[in-house]
């Protein structure tokens, strides 16, 4: 398993897209946090959770890029037919899938930490240059960690699971990008309050200022159910399908 993990991490680290996605997220997150949250800060600067909210909002808005890295890790194998190397050098397809899942989770953590830390730095820089006085900040580390991590793991793993199911790179990315804004939004017209049980809606609720319909914990459970259920279906298909 360790061998498979190391190979998957090497795959992640030896393609440009891994770095491009992180760089785009850092640039966007850096700019928004410097300019909007820092330099142009408003009345809410007196909030003791100002920086914590900035981190959560950044992770919320930009973690899809980490999901795309997860999608690419899986779909590159099919697009470039390297899947046959991956499967014939491993003893078990299950181990390969687990290794990919853990590698993507690891990347998501590194991505979030870098993005979060850079966001805080850019907010502070913006506040300083804009001559804003920030009140003493309090970080609810436990809250920040579990909500941030569930969100980033959730959104990244949903991307990976879609990739396992669909396998086509463009198709997966299109579905992934359209799912929250279009597919779930249309579904919510029919489902009304029950839309809170949809994966992306539940994910959004986890990082919302105030939870809607479901508590943070309940939303996390919904996301977990989708991820575990989706992964199991993907795993069964991965075992049974031809590798092409």
């Amino acid at each position, binding site marked *: 398993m360790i061998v498979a993990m190391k190979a998957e991490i090497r795959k992640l680290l030896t*393609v440009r897209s891994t770095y491009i996605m992180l760089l785009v997220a850092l640039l966007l997150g850096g700019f928004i946090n410097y300019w909007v949250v820092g330099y142009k800060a408003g009345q809410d600067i007196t909030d003791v959770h100002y920086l914590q909210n900035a981190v959560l909002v950044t992770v919320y808005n930009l973690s899809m890029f980490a999901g795309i890295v997860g999608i690419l890790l899986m779909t590159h194998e099919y697009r470039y037919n390297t899947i046959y190397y991956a499967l014939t050098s491993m*003893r078990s397809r299950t181990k390969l899938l687990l290794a990919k899942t853990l590698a993507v989770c690891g990347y998501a953590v590194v991505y979030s930490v870098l993005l979060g830390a850079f966001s805080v730095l850019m907010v502070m820089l913006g506040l300083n240059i804009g001559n804003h006085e920030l009140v003493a900040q309090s970080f609810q580390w436990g809250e920040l960690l579990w909500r941030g991590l569930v969100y980033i793991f959730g959104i990244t793993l949903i991307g990976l699971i879609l990739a396992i199911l669909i396998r086509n790179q463009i198709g997966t990315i299109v579905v992934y990008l359209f799912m929250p804004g279009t597919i779930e939004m249309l579904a919510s017209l029919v489902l009304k309050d029950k839309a809170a049980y949809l994966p992306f809606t539940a994910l959004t609720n986890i990082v919302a200022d105030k939870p809607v319909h479901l508590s943070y914990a309940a939303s996390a459970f919904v996301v977990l159910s989708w991820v575990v259920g989706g992964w199991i279906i993907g795993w069964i298909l991965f075992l049974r399908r*031809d590798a092409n």
Partner: protein
Amino acid sequence: MITAQNLTKKYKKKLAVSDLSFTVNTGRVTGFLGPNGAGKSTTMRLMLGLDRGTGQTLFDDKPLNAHHSPAKLAGILLEAKAFHPTRTARNHLSVLAEAGRIPLSRVDEVLDIVGLKDVARKGPGKFSLGMSQRLGIAAALLGEPRYLILDEPANGLDPEGIAWLRQFIKDYANKGNAVFISSHLLSEMSQMADDIIVIGKGKLIAQGSVDSIIAGSAHAGVFVRSDDTTKLHQTLGKAQANYVDFENGVKVTGMSTEEIGKILFSAGLPVFELSMQNASLEEAFLELTAASEEFSTKGAK
């Protein structure tokens, strides 16, 4: 030894591979031949567990994935362009080495063997087909495997590359390894392979040494010329020999020159020519697969 047993693969209504069994022996190069669409690539994928079908393939009496390090047992080349285009050739092989429990030092060695050392740090996206094949061969050689399974490895190689590949594969097998290789280049195969497996429409048509396959061809036989063709026909008929008229004599199949010589001598028939007529592998192949061509050009005007 690789033993493929009752391999069968069905795509909806089409039977791609049907109850196919054969063996690939160590110390020998085994050519895998068949017309387009015969099921060669599917068979290879079934052998490696990439496609789901029925039957099993044993590598030293165990399925490939039952071995501790499959990549050290079987080196595989199924497609030349199987790489991420911007991941450098060296990194591509490093990923495979990592996954296959192979020391990373081996990467530079195989790049040197296939002559890609100078482009090791370049993305293979712009490699020619020949260079891509070399990278694929390097990947197959990474684990110094006992079995090499190569699907059309000579595609895109220049004449020098083909000559190198031919010698390399023969040397590799001579070290006690087995090479299982599919190719459309029959002249190459006749020079490279010791054994041949021929399939058509997913079924086994013939298996044996190259010499035995060629000898079994209707194009092979013994040419006999005499001044008394009528008596020649009568003598051969009495001896129950299979023969056909051929040029200004007859071609006898299924008998050696010695046997025919003795028969004609006993009959007191003057013989002007008695010579072995060898078929080419191409003739033998076309004869064997005549009924199983999926995409034939015969009849096209």
